[in-house]
């Protein structure tokens, strides 16, 4: 395959550790210039997948291609790929400047050019004045940026990021998410990003792949994954699933086929509210209420069996009003087209 638009290609890749199949017959194409996320719970194979691209693991069978070149047997130092590690992996005995310039030093880039490029990249990640510090003197967020700079300065064709924001607090993480996305668009490099945080994945990615037990369950854009989950696992892992099947589904939609409906698509209405033609309804009682500031989450126990989670914005509901809903009988209404049918899990 010499298609220059495919940055990374997995072809029937297998990798197992002892009895565990970490990566199972994986096939995947990542396009040039895109921000691609590998999403999944721990142990799903996403990190192994990343390490296979980097070269820290070798496939037991199958091939891996980088821009058309088969790199399956190449060690990491011969692949045009750089990694931002989860624990940053900064070299403690070197200054920030030496850390960032390490890759350039190995490639024997002349000192003057090396210094210039290091300075430029430090400006890009907003660490301009810290070149002389050592990692031990930096905060978590600063170290994270140094790790990013160290990888970017080498102009790799693909940048790999292994859950880089995991150790940061919420506000910083959200800020860094935006910054990473901006940098990626500025620099134009293909980013392959690993995370277990589905919100993060939905925020940052151009496309993402949902992993489960070494296999990819679905690949698509964030809205595709969220609005049209292909399997129960994807429906459950990305967002709240509200999976309905069997006789409950029969009672609501007239067909026993499994479907999912996203909680924000459901409205809470009076038990006697009329049901328009293009909507479906389910009656029940509010079992639990969680007030979340911007919105309120209701857990509704259905009369026909099972629960549904409903989320409504607190447009003009206060917390007191929201919490009185507990125990109230309600009718849930949503548009028929928001039922996403899901093929049964095999």
């Amino acid at each position: 395959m010499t298609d220059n638009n495919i940055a990374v290609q997995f072809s029937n890749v297998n990798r197992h550790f002892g009895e565990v199949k970490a990566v199972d017959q994986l096939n995947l194409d990542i396009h040039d210039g895109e921000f691609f996320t590998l999403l999944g719970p721990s142990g799903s194979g996403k990190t192994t997948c990343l390490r296979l691209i980097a070269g820290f693991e070798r496939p037991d069978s199958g091939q891996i291609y980088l821009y058309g070149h088969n790199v399956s047997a190449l060690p990491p130092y011969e692949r045009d790929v750089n990694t931002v590690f989860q624990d940053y992996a900064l070299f403690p005995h070197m200054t920030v400047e030496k850390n960032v310039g390490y890759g350039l030093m190995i490639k024997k880039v002349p000192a003057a050019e090396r210094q210039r490029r290091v300075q430029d990249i430090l400006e890009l990640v907003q660490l301009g004045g810290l070149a002389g510090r050592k990692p031990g003197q930096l905060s978590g967020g600063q170290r994270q940026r140094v790790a990013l700079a160290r990888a970017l300065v080498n102009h790799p064709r693909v940048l790999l990021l292994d859950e880089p924001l995991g150790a940061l607090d919420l506000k910083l993480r959200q800020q860094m998410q935006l910054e990473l996305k901006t940098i990626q668009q500025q620099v134009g490099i293909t980013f392959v990003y690993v995370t277990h945080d589905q919100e993060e994945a939905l925020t940052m990615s151009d496309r993402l792949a949902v992993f489960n037990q070494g296999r990819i369950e679905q690949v698509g854009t964030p809205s595709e994954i969220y609005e049209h989950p292909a399997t129960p696992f994807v429906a459950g892992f990305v967002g709240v699933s509200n999976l309905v099947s069997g006789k409950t589904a029969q009672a609501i939609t007239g067909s026993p086929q499994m479907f999912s409906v996203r909680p924000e698509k459901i409205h809470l209405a009076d038990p006697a509210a009329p049901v328009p033609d293009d909507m479906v309804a389910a009656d029940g009682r509010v079992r639990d209420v969680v007030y979340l500031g911007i919105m309120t989450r209701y857990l509704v126990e259905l009369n026909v069996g099972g629960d549904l989670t409903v989320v409504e914005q607190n447009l003009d509901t206060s917390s007191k009003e929201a919490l009185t809903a507990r125990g109230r009988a309600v009718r849930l209404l949503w548009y028929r087209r928001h039922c996403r049918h899901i093929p049964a899990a095999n």
Partner: protein
Amino acid sequence: MPSKSPAPFSLKLTTLAVILFLHCPFLIIVLYMFTSEERAFTFPPPGLTVEWFAVTWARSDVWRALGLSLRVASLATLVALLLGTLAAAAVYRAKFFGRDAVSLLLVLPIALPGIVTGIALRSAMGLLEIPFSFWTIIIGHATFCVVVVYNNVLARFRRSGRSQIEASMDLGANGFQTLRHIILPEIATALLAGGMLAFALSFDEVIVTTFTAGQQQTLPIWIFSELTRPRQRPVTNIVAVLVIAITTVPILLAYYFTKDTSETAGMGK
């Protein structure tokens, strides 16, 4: 488990007494370096003099023993640094069958009484008809010096984590470049600390050495012979203080290099 109430006085007294008990003998030896008596240990010393320093300087057997001890300790340390680091790297990197056994194997020479190592080596020499030599001493010392380096280096490896090596390779450095730029600087102080400990251990060793040296005399063996058939006692005292200095200083340095870490040198020798 710190307590909020003050310590009982008897406890404080006992502690002080024990600590003094541990340290007084050193002061005594230093004092006796200056006694004017040659054959006895009279207290208080009948006279004080510094003439014995010149006498010690002139004693050729002392110089020979010192030279041998230094050469043995240096070489044993080198061997220990090499083998200990290789073993630590292997144990850290890979999971293999018998991994814990390696640590046990390396600690055995220190765990078993010195006399066992000594007579074992002697038995082997007898069986294979190997004569006493400089190298038999080195082999004996290397057996217990390796574990000291091994422990220090392994602890340092464990502290640094493997992602740094991966990061280096990811950035374009092959194995040897990574070794030179990342790994060796990382373990430098561990090597130094381990090496110093090994040196001190070897320099001070007398039990295993007695079995493997034959007629050769390292400094501790020299002291031992003076213990049982003394000649000029103040000379022995001076040599004793010299030995203390040569063994304590490296250990203090090793302690200093590793003191802020979990693998502080010198613990559980």
